[in-house]
């Protein structure tokens, strides 16, 4: 089970990227892309290159964002499942969150925020405060993403026992940072990357 979930997450992310690039909105093309992603992920399990690319370590957040994008054409409500304002907050929040997490190991600061992810009330309390802020602002989709990561952590969906693995991965942080750069380069560009729409 724990070995299969990273493959499914990889398949969803791969299929979402491929569907965005190929502009495929039909159910069957998207389902085929997901199936192809699962086969690709399974075939890469014994391949050292997948470790090199970190494809087995994608976070639950990445998987859920990709799933949301793939299901967008069938979303029953008129407004998108991840509203524009939520998208902006997510993209704005990810690079600072990644920096807070990754700064100590980069700079040899003694704080070990990574270790807090193994289960600590301080990290959970901060996340609760963030969640309550989002709740007051009625950013429900982000609240649900946060709760999904925490519940996934509680039931041990991923091979790692670290909450950070569920919330965030380097590719997601890099994607958000890339979007920052894109917005700075083209201020009048779209409000969010295709995967968050």
């Amino acid at each position: 089970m724990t070995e299969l979930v990273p493959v499914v997450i990889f398949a969803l992310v791969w299929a979402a990227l491929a569907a965005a690039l190929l502009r495929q909105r039909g159910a069957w093309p998207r389902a085929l892309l997901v199936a192809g992603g699962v086969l690709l992920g399974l075939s890469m399990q014994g391949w050292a290159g997948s470790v090199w690319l970190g494809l087995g370590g994608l976070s639950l957040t990445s998987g859920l964002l990709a799933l949301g994008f793939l299901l967008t054409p069938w979303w029953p409500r008129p407004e998108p499942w991840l509203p524009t304002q939520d998208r902006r907050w997510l993209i704005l929040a990810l690079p600072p969150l990644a920096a807070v997490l990754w700064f100590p190991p980069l700079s040899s600061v003694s704080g070990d925020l990574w270790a807090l992810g193994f289960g600590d009330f301080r990290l959970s309390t901060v996340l609760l405060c963030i969640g309550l802020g989002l709740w007051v602002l009625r950013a429900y989709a982000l609240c649900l993403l946060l709760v999904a990561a925490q519940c996934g952590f509680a039931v041990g969906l991923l091979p790692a026992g670290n909450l950070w693995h569920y919330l965030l991965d380097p590719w997601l942080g890099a994607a958000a940072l890339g979007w920052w750069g894109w917005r700075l380069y083209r201020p009048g560009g779209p409000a969010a990357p295709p995967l968050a729409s």
Partner: protein
Amino acid sequence: MRNRIIHLGIGALLVLGYFAGLPGFLWTPGSGLATTPALTRATGAPPAMPARVGQHAAWVATAEGGVELLWAQDDELRGSAWAPGASAWSEPRRVLGNEQPGAGWLAGGFVPQRLADDSLVIHFIRPGPFPALASARQRAGADWQISHAGQVQPLPGGNPVLRAPGLPLADGGIWMIVDLDDRNAIYSVSADGRLAGRQFVSAPGEQLTLLGESEVELLALLAPAAAGAARWRASADLGQRWTPAAPLQALADVAPVPLAALRLDARDWGLLRSDASGRLFWHRSRDGGQQWQAPQELARSRIACLQQQPPALHGGRDGVLHLVYPQAEDCRLHYMALRADGGVLNQESRDD
């Protein structure tokens, strides 16, 4: 009304998420340490073992009650075993090649573990920009199975190295020491192969060695970053809380090489250290580290070799202590058998 119900429901889910992300403790070590039984008095002397060319030498008990030396050579894991009563060490066998775990799988060291069902587990680090802890497990007569425990560090990069021996837990989990650039960290891997916790108990540059005294008591022995005095810390609650680091008075001249420590009996510890000139000394304390007997010089090596391959020490069930250390001349692995009192049983070693 409907919107209000959704709003309150999501608020309730946030509280649920808070408790879901809260296992309770920063350090969730596992069930308890699997302490080894007291060693009996050594009666026999093992035969000599030819010097080996290899890296990351580590000991593991065999299913037959003997002991096997494992080492990395040419991206393969090799082993040579001996059982009490046997006249010679077995010819080196290929334990596991790189076909399944991938090329370069032993570059980051390995930690062997013998489980209660006699399966052999080799913990290693899969190399790459995202180095990940992984393990290969072989049940008796079956094929190897590879599983992953997750990234060693949050960021890509780094060059983490595993250092044997691990500290096994009663439930099949293990604690392992990982060299992360200039720091040593303790990683806890659960019985189902999940990365379950990490913590730092040593200062930058210090080399950490763990010694389990009972199910919940353990000692962290800290070799200094530059030749000098070693330090120690103790925990009586499975690593939840540690005493402040204090100098270990008996070990004033310690090279920046990890110490090798062994529990011989309750409060009876043996310890191997190297001094600044590369000489190896055996220390013993029979009162839980209060007093240390006069050290006995065992062998001479070289600091540069010892930093590549720290001494690997193992207590066999028959009371024989098995030691492997690098030779001073060419860093090849040299075998020595000794008793708990430091008496050398057999140190002849012929070249391969």
